[in-house]
């Protein structure tokens, strides 16, 4: 049973491949920004908070028949709310950022678990949300992901020079007259949008790995941010499709396989580049 052979017959597989491709673009572009700004922990907190939105959506749909409030919408609203909270937090000094992130992270998950417990019916959702359910991606999810991609990549292209300046040195940006708070908010929001997409592919627990590993690997291979984004996108695409294919035959969980493959690639590139730079320094 191979992915390629079944791909033409099953729409759900085609959707899964398309979802991987869409998620890879945002993971590569936004993941690079997150990695160079050293804010992967923030992304992880947003990712875990998303469970509250997913749980709330399920509760509203099943218990109160609010059909339009889809899990994707719930995830999106929660991620944006957390992004706004974090952006406002970074404007205030004196707050211990890591402690606030941990609080948001755990309270978000607690709310999600409670919402799901209050939801009538079979509790299959939680597992999918936590560890990904890429084989259950539907047409509506794909449309939403395409829109989110267009927004995030469009925003990065539009503001590229200024986002890079804020990420490189926010004081310099402020002295050049840039509205640093605005661009930090933009970075928070596009990170949140990307996390929502990656949660659909790899799940809450593993999404941040897909955001971080390809970008970190690309960071070993190139020293320019633009190229890092391109390389990270290609790597994210390769590992997510590769992971999907590897998991399909033995019926392994796709999200976990994707992350494991990304980690193997990262370690391999790390070892190769380390050895090469050692060889170089010996010359």
């Amino acid at each position, binding site marked *: 049973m191979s992915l390629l052979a079944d791909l033409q017959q099953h729409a759900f597989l085609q959707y899964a491949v398309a979802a991987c491709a869409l998620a890879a673009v945002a993971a590569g572009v936004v993941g690079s920004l997150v990695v*160079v700004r050293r804010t992967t922990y923030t992304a992880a907190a947003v990712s875990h908070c998303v469970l509250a939105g997913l749980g709330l959506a399920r509760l509203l749909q099943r218990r109160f028949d609010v059909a339009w409030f889809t899990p994707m919408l719930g995830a999106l609203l929660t991620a944006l709310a957390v992004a706004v909270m974090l952006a406002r937090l970074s404007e205030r000094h004196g707050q211990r950022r890591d402690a606030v992130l941990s609080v948001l992270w755990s309270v978000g998950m607690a709310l999600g678990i409670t919402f799901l417990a209050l939801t009538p019916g079979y509790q299959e959702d939680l597992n999918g949300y936590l560890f990904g359910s890429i084989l259950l991606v539907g047409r509506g999810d794909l449309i939403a992901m395409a829109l989110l991609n267009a927004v995030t990549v469009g925003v990065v292209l*539009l*503001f*590229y*020079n*200024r986002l*890079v*300046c804020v*990420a*490189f*040195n926010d*004081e*310099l*940006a*402020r*002295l*050049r*007259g*840039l*509205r640093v708070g*605005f661009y930090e908010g933009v970075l928070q929001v596009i990170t949140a949008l990307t996390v929502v997409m990656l949660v659909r592919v790899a799940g809450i627990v593993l999404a941040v790995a897909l955001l971080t590993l390809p970008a970190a690997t690309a*960071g070993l291979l*190139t*020293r*320019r*941010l633009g190229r*890092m984004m391109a390389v990270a996108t290609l790597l994210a695409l390769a590992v997510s499709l590769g992971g999907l294919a590897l998991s399909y035959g033995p019926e392994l969980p796709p999200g976990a396989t994707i992350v494991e493959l990304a980690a193997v690639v990262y370690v391999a590139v790390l070892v190769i580049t380390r050895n090469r730079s050692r060889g170089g320094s010996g010359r």
Partner: protein
Amino acid sequence: MSREIGDGQATGGPVLSFAGVCFAYRTSEALHNVTFAVPERSLVAVVGPNGGGKTTLLRLILGLERPLYGTVRVFGLAPESARRRVGYVPQVLAYDTRFPVSVNDVVLMGTLEGGLAGAYGRRERLAAAAALDRVGLAALEHRPFSELSGGERQRTLIAQALAGGPQLLLLDEPTASVDPPTADRLHDLFGQLAETLTVLFVSHNLSVVTAHATHVLCVNRTADLHPASDVVSETFRAAYGGGRMVVLQHGASCQVVDASAALTSPHHQCSSEGCPQETEP
């Protein structure tokens, strides 16, 4: 060109002026009753012990901090309004040296202005190329910032500050992390730059101060500006270590080491409670 302190008659005013400026971080006062005026096209060495307030002084000029009392004016404007005419080179440690950008990328950032979005245009690229040429780094334009030596990194940041076309250039310990020959080259560069703009640089190297600067600004909670010609080089005592704070001693009027009398004087613009905040002229 006049080198008289406060004499800015060529353009109708000093490039930079402090009038009765006091500044405190929370409860400890960092600067007290600072008054001076820097004339156009001078090369000012800012000297003083660590913790004496040199970086605070630069941050006040940039409007990154606001004085508790007194007034700072840059080109006759509030510091925030004059920022685009000021180039700032912070200590090189302020940067993430692993950030994936090229030398040219870093220099181009110095041309950014307030607009919300957009790519760098021809004007910005030409300004960046000219600034790189000025610091002698044109050949390294495409080199990753992370692969530069300390001196090259410092020159890149100077080029970044120059790319914005400043009329006042502030450098915070620009030679702290470079080897002596590079430091000499940088000081020659500052001298050349001071022919067309005003340069303030923080330095711990007192021989450099006497060799290059037109003025010396002594900062140790108080601040006094002197023409370099008034500073008697024999009286330099570079005793930074050993717990002593002797920086330099010149003339009869200014001894940075003994600022006790100046520090006990009241704030210039108020001597009792209920002082107004920063006074507008």
